[in-house]
């Protein structure tokens, strides 16, 4: 089938501002949008720039706006978006070139959440594992699925308003450790989250939940963080 792709193009060395270019390629309905992009880059215009890595929905590199919705190009099939596909870079982050955005502000916010296990207590007697029950593990299972693709953060109206807002992905990183029974950095993280750019900037628009390619219930998880700050309950 013939597929027409309308792609946002921007080369900082040539263009004052971005523009769109149309390409027509032959693709199967079971092809992914990433395959279509590869066809364009391989056969139509080698200067097209986009990120990709694993191509299997795990690395989160190829998040972009496909027909106005944030999605991973490698997980979106042509049959699901039709024969006329509009592809744009993620919103809210500076475009570096074509479909590539500057992820620095996104990862800066992520790092502010102290996204690692904090535990200064002595190791258990056997010197090996800090044990955890299946129920305790299940408490934060949902947010361990995050692949940091930024689809949620760049779908968030609060993040569009200001990139100072930590954003849903950073809050997911916080959630993953705040509710981990082995972690001892909860108070530090909750103090960070209670800042002006923390959870209070989330106005439950639910865009993040819709955008997440991993199906994480992000807004619900942010709600759990808010309730933890009010009630102090972590179970």
């Amino acid at each position, binding site marked *: 089938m013939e597929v027409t792709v309308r792609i946002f193009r921007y080369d900082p060395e040539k263009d004052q501002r971005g523009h769109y270019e149309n390409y027509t390629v032959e693709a199967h309905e079971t092809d992914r949008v990433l395959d279509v992009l590869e066809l364009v880059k391989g056969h139509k215009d080698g200067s097209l720039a986009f990120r990709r890595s694993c191509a299997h929905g795990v690395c989160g590199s190829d998040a972009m706006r496909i027909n106005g919705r944030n999605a991973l190009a490698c997980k979106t099939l042509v049959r699901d978006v039709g024969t006329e596909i509009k592809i744009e870079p993620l919103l809210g982050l500076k475009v570096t070139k074509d479909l590539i955005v500057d992820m620095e502000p996104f990862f800066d916010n992520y790092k502010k959440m102290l996204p690692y296990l904090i535990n200064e207590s002595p190791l258990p007697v056997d010197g090996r594992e800090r044990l955890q*029950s299946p*129920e*305790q593990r299940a408490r934060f299972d949902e947010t361990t699925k995050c692949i940091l693709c930024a689809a949620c953060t760049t779908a968030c109206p*609060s993040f569009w*308003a*200001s990139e*100072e*807002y930590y954003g849903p992905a950073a809050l997911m990183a916080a959630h993953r450790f705040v509710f981990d*029974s082995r972690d001892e950095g*909860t*108070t530090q*993280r*909750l*103090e*960070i*989250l*209670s*800042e*002006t*750019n*923390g*959870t*209070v*900037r989330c*106005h439950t628009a639910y865009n993040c939940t819709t955008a997440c390619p991993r199906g994480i219930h992000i807004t619900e998880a942010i709600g759990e963080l*808010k309730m*933890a*700050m*009010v*009630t*102090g*309950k*972590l*179970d």
Partner: protein
Amino acid sequence: MTPRTLPIKKRGFSFEVFMWAFTRFTVFAMYGLILAGIFGALIVSSKTGAGFGDILYWAFFPTLAENPLGQIGMTVLAKLMVISLTLVACGHGVHGVLEIWDDYVTNEGARRWARNIVITYAVAASIIAVYVILSA
């Protein structure tokens, strides 16, 4: 497995979090007060045989002599209800304005100024509203 609950000092309970909780509380409070007001009005109307228009008239012009429900007047309870509704609505509304401001303005100084202005306005507006209601 003992439940994990953080003491209040370790929850990162800041002004922002307090206002977030306050804003949610005021929504429920407003719904409660509005429902109480509606039920009160229905009870009054059933006792006096007043119509919906009379009830509305009573609600907005409670002290006018020509009010068909003038004999009921605005009781102390009614005044307290209206004061409560005004205060929670004012608190909820001004905090909403502050939320929108904070979404777009990230400068610390501008945020502090906006907060001071909005809180001053909320306190002043509440005092004036309470005075007007009590003197009605």
